[in-house]
């Protein structure tokens, strides 16, 4: 049994915003995910959307909250039911990346400023298994934890006006993938053919909070073959 260690506040009478300590840890990620799943399964919470983030969980309710005390009491009762925080993660997604060249317009600048050899940058970026803390910012954009501190790099002073879909970037202590075209301030070191967001697919977004990601380097010539492989893997995963 865990004691309630979150604070809460209600906004606009229908938005319940819960916050934990301001830290990025796998333990907190699992706790929030588990709590979110528990809440979704309870009929008494008439929720529309439940949105996890690094240290928060935001519940958008259908109706205005009439009795906030009652609601909080039942939330805390649900929370204490989480007997222990499981360390179990979701799926591991292997993400092929073409590093550098036209696929990673900032690759050269990044390895130089980090004082590394090109291969070293690829080695370090592909060595970690990244936790997907949550999805936000863009449809299917995974917020990843676990970037090697040696790869931390402040965002660009002037954001790029247009980053192409599939771009793999580094921004501050984070790394991530742009699923759709977007402006952005991250340094783009490569591109993946893995389809993070595809409206013609069910579900359109397959990578979830608490899943894990491993990047691996592929030559440019394998981009199309890997794209088909990714499609097949996703199809297999969701048809079984």
């Amino acid at each position, binding site marked *: 049994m865990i004691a309630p260690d979150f604070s809460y506040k209600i906004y606009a009478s229908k938005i319940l915003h819960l916050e934990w300590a*301001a830290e990025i840890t796998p333990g907190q990620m699992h706790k929030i995910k588990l709590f979110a799943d528990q809440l979704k399964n309870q009929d008494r919470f008439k929720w529309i959307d439940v949105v996890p983030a690094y240290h928060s969980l935001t519940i958008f309710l259908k109706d205005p909250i009439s009795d906030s005390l009652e609601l909080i009491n039942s939330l805390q009762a649900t929370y204490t039911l989480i007997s222990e925080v499981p360390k179990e993660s979701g799926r591991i997604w292997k993400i092929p990346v073409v590093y550098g060249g036209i696929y990673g317009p900032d690759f050269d600048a990044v390895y130089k400023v980090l004082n590394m050899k090109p291969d070293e940058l690829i080695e370090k970026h592909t060595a970690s298994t990244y936790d997907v803390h949550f999805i936000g910012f863009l449809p299917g954009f995974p917020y990843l934890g676990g970037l090697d501190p040696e790869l931390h790099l402040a965002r660009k002073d002037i954001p790029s006006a247009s980053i192409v879909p599939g771009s793999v970037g580094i921004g501050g202590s984070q790394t991530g993938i742009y699923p759709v075209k977007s402006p952005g301030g991250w340094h783009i070191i490569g591109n993946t053919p893995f389809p993070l967001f595809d409206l013609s697919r069910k579900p359109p977004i397959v990578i979830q909070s608490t899943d894990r990601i491993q990047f691996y380097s592929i030559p440019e010539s394998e981009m199309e073959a890997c794209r088909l492989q990714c499609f097949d893997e996703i199809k297999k995963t969701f048809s079984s």
Partner: protein
Amino acid sequence: MKLRKPFQAESMPELKVLRCGAFGSVQDMGRTGFRHWGIPVSGVLDENSAKSANLICGNPENSALLELIGPGWEFEFSQDTNISICGSDWHPEINQKRVSLQQNNEVKSGDILTMKFPGKGRIAYLGITGGFQTEEILGSRSWHSQFTESFILKKNTILPYSELSARKVDNSIFIKNHPNETSGNLIKAERGPEWNLLSHDAIMQFTEKEWTVTNRSNRMAYFVEEKLIPITKSILTSAVWPGIVQLTPSGQMIILMKDAQTTGGYPRILSIPQEELNKIAQKNPGEKLRLCVSAG
């Protein structure tokens, strides 16, 4: 009166855009249930006016209608139906005959609707009986560049709408409070999650200052010209929603609207409830707001 031959209708009645204002799109009450996938909620900016427009022409509140930002529109209807216009008054005319807002209007095959002249407010809604029957993506017909093929009304855009059923629209429905009459420039806001990071001097700015809406304002966010004393502390990325006011490191306040992203990393200093957001949505660039902040 200028007579125009109605364009050829296929199977379904269609509305054709003959002339465009600044920005127009099909919207309903939004794409809910997918925010954990990073999918913005979208939907009408001024819910009050949009709901009225739907109710008046006999629709459920959630039917798809046209959200028109700025005047200058001209439409042609291929078949008989009922329409209603709510929100900003741009002197609408059907076949050059003035029609009122907030009422049900019958239109015939080949009729031309114009909404030409600037007026108070920024957004008008065109409701049509049965609603527009454009593609539904993830439970919503709301247009958004990331989800729907069309995302902005253009000249010659064609939009299917429902055939008029035998059921007659109740002409007695009249929504009393015209939104623009009740909307002053005073906006009630709640303290946001990071309100406590504001300095005393920054908080004092809310009691003194007026905030001018800029022309950068769009369906994602409304911006104000005047700067607020910024917050130096950085925060972890967390959920945001329409009505959240973010404060950037340069002191720019960003009022998030319906197409806003689902999470953000700027301090969330205010949260503005939807009733108040309806009023902000109707502000044209150059108009002023006062933000009255309560503990919430």
